[in-house]
């Protein structure tokens, strides 16, 4: 059985595919902090400098999702569901001009998932 730790809702997936029409290579990066923080940012792949301090959590419709290692330490026991809301945030995330904003819903990883990811 294959395990995942992130997924995207069908509604969010629709908005993602709209952004893809104009941007060939994308990434998600989970933000933290003030204002529009605590939400995932959708960015052009070459825009954000990534290195070993960014943890790869999986792909959403072929778009890789990353989170900074420091933040991951506090989030690692949770499963992330990337959803969408009407609104426009206030950041450089690429869906904002469409009048939507990605947001994260979460649940706890279950025992089998924790074991699979070496977190038990």
């Amino acid at each position, binding site marked *: 059985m294959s395990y995942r730790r992130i997924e995207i809702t069908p509604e969010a997936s629709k908005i993602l595919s709209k952004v893809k029409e104009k941007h060939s290579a994308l990434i998600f990066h989970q933000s*933290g902090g003030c*204002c529009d923080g605590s939400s995932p940012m959708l960015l052009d792949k070459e825009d954000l400098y990534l290195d070993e301090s960014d943890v790869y959590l999986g792909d959403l419709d072929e778009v890789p999702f990353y989170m900074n290692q420091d933040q991951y330490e506090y989030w690692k026991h949770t499963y992330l569901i990337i959803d969408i809301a009407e609104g426009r945030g206030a950041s450089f995330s690429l869906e904002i001009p469409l009048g939507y904003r990605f947001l994260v819903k*979460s649940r706890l990883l279950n025992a089998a998932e924790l074991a699979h990811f070496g977190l038990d």
Partner: protein
Amino acid sequence: MSYSKPTFKEKYGNFINGEFVAPIDGEYFENHSPVDNSLIAKYPRSKKEDIDKAVEAANAAKESWGNTSATHRAALLNKVADIIEAHLEEFALVETCDNGKAIRETLNADVPLSVDHWRYFAAAIRMEEGSASELDEHTVSLIIKEPLGVVGQIIPWNFPLLMLSWKLPPALAAGNCVVLKPAEQTPSSATLLMEKIAKVFPPGVINVVHGFGPEAGKPLASHSEIDKVAFTGETTTGQLIMQYASKNLNPVTMELGGKSPNIFFNSVMDHDDDYLDKAIEGAVLFAFNQGEVCTCPSRILVQEDIYDAFMERVVARTKAIVQGNPYDTTTMVGAQASNDQHKKILSYFEIGKEEGAKILTGGKSCELEGDLANGFYIEPTIFEGHNKMRVFQEEIFGPVVCVTKFNDEAEALEIANDTLYGLGAGVWTRDAHQLYQIPRAIKAGRVWVNCYHAYPAHAPFGGYKKSGFGRENHVMMMNYYRQTKNMLISYDKNKLGFF
């Protein structure tokens, strides 16, 4: 008393080179009020070309503005303060409409504080001096402060006019020209201010360009013809802006939020007096501005032996909060700034419950009647849990606080510093030693001691750790907008003798 929604024009322009202009490609976006989701007005959906025009205007103005006297600049800053003050109620209403915050806050905090920040820097630039040192009997070192030139500023939506008034006055006082992008949720008070002060400054000194982050914010932050970027927002965009600045080798200042601990030692309950009453209010300040404050005291740490008695009073005080129509002066908590913020806060209620945090009060959306039913309201909420829970670690930016207990000073500090951020903190105690030692041991830029949420212009504000770097407010702020010119002068007629 109750106010009603102010009136607006159908659409507004960018303020570039001293006049209002339409966006070059003619595109606008609709701005809605979070009070009832009604339309406010249309604002320019600016792109790179609009930013280019604003940066060009600022560059054209920088030399003559940078050479104006401190006296002159101070007089103009004071004029802005007088104008805002003369229209205090108008600014307060527009701010409440645009952001959703309660009118009693905009009337008594946002707008009067904004006035004071303009006046503070008008005064600061007059009293400040450079320095001269005689390094030896023939050599004098002069230190002269010079403006950077053109500054790009990107401000948030939680205190639109106040954050503008934190950023513009020090940059202008120091002799810079500015291109400012307000947050796309709250473009109104910046526009109103430009209408009122359009003729105060020479064209190009202040430019305000509206639009979305990826379309207008990015071209501003990455522009090669600006000399500095100041940003308030979240960490990923902060990283991006630093990357862009690195390409231009430009300085940046970053204010990226926090998860501020508010610590209550057992001595607060030694007496049931005015001080205890103040401390309980200090805990409930998490609900100030709907919790949409970078320094929201969103983690309450209470010493074990007073925990039950103290929290009983905090919960009671929280339940007494009046929530409702933001235009009503009796309302204490208004609307969250947008639908997406509202949804994000609700998602934290779910993960908080899943992780086992207990809701002591609130925990759901607040459903109001009439037009307000379309607005974005959240009940003030207290979670009880432990510091490793995500609700204790992430900035929820809502009227939501997480409470936990500690045994002794060491444990209080361990919990307080167990966070990625370090912007604000509160320490409440009657113990004279704790009053000094605990704040010194907390890794945060601002520690309020026996108070919270005070933001005087004369006190520096900024973060440790992932809360950013650089400071705002205080006379020191001007140095973040200046170069240091050193003139090293010899009064010796004799050569060195080397050649």
